């Protein structure tokens, strides 16, 4: 039979602990099952839960910041006293503490929250199932990746408690400031080195898995768009993160070994010339940082687009419009994302040749992004739309990402960027893409795949209580920031810019934003309750909870070790909904039919069920 050789290797492999936790014949202890699991589903849930907790924590940091922005200098009752005199003497926030909150909010949301949830969580749980594989290609490496992430997170959180507090130099950690800040900045670097390692190992795993472990009949052109998105994302992580790894090592050397990678000669700090060799370049950090950080923002959005695509196809009962265009676009975005980075550096004094180059590539990259959004919107046309909770979030994603994307255009052009750089306009732009954009898509993913992971639906009533206030308040947070930015309000001012006359007329908006933010926090309570309560009390879901077409719905809910009792075979594309002449409004990929299965070249024909 086709897979007999594999089976033999499995036997010998098992003897060498190759498939440790997959030796399903004996029960695993607590540590091997929950802490050191090598099962992609357990690891995916670990990533997802940890990621969601970090998102909540990062959000809390920002809510604290919003207090000082709405009521600069005012004492914060209760919490202000708890945080102590080194952070909030008399309950009133110190600028240094505000900066710590700001730097850690950004770092935690991007590196400890969104990416682990989107890639580590959804990627790990869904991708092997959607390609019909028993697990990732390297299960133990997968476990290592999670632990690198987890301990990197511990280091990041620990940095709050070292003398001088956490990192204060922004999530961007620009030198020379970052080179001379207190110890927390070093902890930030060490945390980042661990997190980057986690992502790099994860990327190796994803790319190998998607190339090698697709089930028979699952050609690249039959892959769900979610898998394509994760595939491109993994390449971005693989090739871009090393630049920040290198820069982080150099910044570590500057801080610990007193080198001058980023320190120019003659730098004066607190009235004294710094005793270093000099000869370094602060701009070097910016180049290496943004070489990573620009592809990183596509890491933040592509899995989200993948999730939205899955949810829209499923809830319109129609194939996605423009599947090929979507695939070509996502690959193009991936490639182009490496050559736009200096649009974050227009104000650093670069010559017109280079600024022209980067603004041109930046304008070009908006084209495939618009193509993807357009295809997703056009996919709604003529559909039988089911307004399920995942669909609500997926639908909201479309205009929200539209706003985020469009407002990026003036930032990507060098001339308007002169006015907008480092203002609240930038904050509004990127938050629209990541918050009502990616985060909403991730919520859609939670509501969509929760039944697969647990065998139960999340409550629809609580979902509505989560969705509608969130949509309202999140716009209340970020829309006014465009107005503030247009007026010229600078970022990262701990008191929101009270000292500046040119923004005095938009200061009041800080209160609107802050109250919206606190309202947004309250709106998450129904979700948290739902998430935990539905595990035991949610309505039971069948294996194919949404009458969907992709492979993960062929597995039991939740899937056992090895996922599929019999290796699935793929007979058709991923979005065969409302197929003319077919009984029922969906035709799953894995359901046998009269179509020819395209086998893996060289493999014997897989046995038909």
């Amino acid at each position, binding site marked *: 039979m086709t897979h007999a050789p594999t089976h033999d290797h499995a036997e010998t492999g098992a003897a060498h602990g190759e498939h440790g936790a997959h030796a399903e014949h004996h029960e695993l202890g607590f540590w091997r099952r929950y802490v050191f699991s090598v099962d992609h589903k357990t690891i995916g849930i670990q990533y997802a839960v940890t990621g969601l907790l970090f998102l909540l924590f990062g959000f809390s940091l920002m809510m604290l910041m919003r207090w000082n922005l709405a009521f600069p200098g005012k004492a914060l009752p209760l919490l202000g006293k708890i945080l102590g005199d080194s952070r909030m003497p008399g309950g009133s926030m110190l600028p240094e503490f505000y900066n710590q909150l700001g730097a850690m909010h950004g770092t935690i949301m991007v590196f400890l929250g969104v990416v682990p949830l989107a890639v580590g969580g959804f990627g790990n749980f869904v991708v092997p199932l959607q390609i019909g594989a028993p697990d990732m290609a390297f299960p133990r490496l997968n476990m290592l990746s999670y632990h690198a992430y987890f301990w990197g997170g511990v280091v990041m959180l620990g940095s709050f408690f070292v003398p001088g507090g956490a990192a204060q130099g922004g999530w961007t950690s620009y030198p020379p400031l970052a080179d001379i800040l207190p110890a927390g900045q070093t902890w930030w670097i060490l945390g980042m080195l661990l997190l980057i390692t986690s992502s790099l190992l994860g990327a190796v795993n994803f790319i190998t898995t998607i190339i090698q472990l697709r089930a028979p009949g699952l050609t690249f052109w039959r892959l769900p768009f979610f898998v394509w998105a994760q595939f491109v994302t993994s390449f971005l992580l693989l090739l871009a993160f090393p630049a920040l790894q290198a820069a982080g090592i150099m910044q570590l050397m500057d801080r610990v070994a007193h080198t001058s990678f980023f320190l120019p000669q003659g730098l004066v700090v607190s009235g004294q010339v710094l005793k270093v060799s000099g000869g370094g370049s602060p701009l070097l950090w910016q180049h290496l940082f943004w070489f990573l950080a620009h592809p990183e923002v596509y890491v933040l959005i592509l899995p989200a687009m993948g999730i939205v695509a899955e949810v829209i196809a499923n809830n319109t009962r129609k194939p996605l419009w423009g599947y090929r265009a979507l695939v070509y676009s996502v690959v193009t975005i991936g490639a182009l994302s490496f050559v736009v980075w200096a649009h974050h550096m227009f104000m650093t004094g670069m010559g017109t040749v280079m600024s022209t180059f980067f603004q041109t590539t930046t304008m070009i990259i908006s084209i495939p992004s618009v193509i993807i959004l357009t295809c997703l919107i056009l996919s709604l046309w003529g559909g039988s739309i089911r307004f399920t909770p995942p669909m609500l979030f997926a639908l909201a994603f479309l205009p929200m990402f539209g706003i985020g994307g469009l407002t990026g255009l003036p930032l990507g052009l060098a001339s308007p960027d002169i006015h907008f750089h480092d203002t609240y306009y930038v904050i509004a732009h990127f938050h629209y893409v990541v918050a009502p954009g990616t985060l909403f898509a991730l919520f859609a993913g939670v509501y969509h795949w929760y039944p697969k992971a647990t065998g139960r639906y999340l409550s629809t009533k609580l979902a509505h209580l989560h969705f509608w206030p969130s949509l309202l308040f999140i716009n209340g947070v970020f829309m006014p920031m465009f107005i503030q930015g247009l007026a010229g309000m600078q970022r990262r001012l701990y008191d929101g810019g009270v000292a500046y006359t040119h923004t005095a007329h938009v200061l009041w908006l800080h209160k609107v934003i802050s109250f919206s933010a606190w309202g947004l926090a309250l709106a998450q309570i129904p979700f948290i309750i739902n998430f935990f309560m539905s595990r035991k009390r949610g309505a039971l879901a069948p294996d194919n909870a949404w009458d969907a077409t992709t492979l993960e719905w062929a597995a039991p809910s939740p899937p056992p070790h*090895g996922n599929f009792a019999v290796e699935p075979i793929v007979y058709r594309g991923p979005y065969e909904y409302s197929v003319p002449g077919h009984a029922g409004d969906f035709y799953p990929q894995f359901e046998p039919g009269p179509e020819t299965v395209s086998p893996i070249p060289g493999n014997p024909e897989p046995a038909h069920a």
Partner: protein
Amino acid sequence: MSSAIPYTVETRPDTGLNNVKLGIWIFLASEVMLFGSLFAGYILLRTGNPTWGKGSELLSVPLATLNTAVLITSSVTMVMAWVAAMERKLGKFRLYMGSTVALGAVFMVVKAFEYQAKFHHGAPPSYSTFMACYFTFTGLHALHVLGGMIINFYFGFPGAKMMATDPQQFANRVETAGLFWHFVDLVWIFLFPVLYLLNFQAPPA
């Protein structure tokens, strides 16, 4: 169906690869970008600096030439170890693998000696951006050498049991370790001229 991962040892027909070989090349791609970023830093710092350390004055070219020869030789012994693993010849394998580890150790000892000499002569990393580059780049490279040595030692000695039980998977693993080791050699092939040999008269300040 068992939960075994397919194509761990046997090759997938359409790609012609097994998972481990594909995985290590993907990993090496990230390493290319890592060292590439370091070289990018070097280029930016070097071109922006009118005064730049003269590698040949601050560093020992003979020692580094020796180290280059040592690493190249270790790459040969590494690939011979793989040949021995393919031939299922345990003794020959151990000899070559042991030599690879030993040569790696020689490299590290020479490096340690070089580092100590620099500190002794008052040229630590903080001395100049050139020394910062030298220590950081060769230091990161040395960490990779160390990692490779640990992996090679494992396969050469405690892990060599697998040659008896699963020889083809073992040979594949040795080949994979070899790919990493050769890459480390390859990086040094570029580090050596850039840091030790390429230096020019600084124009008058």
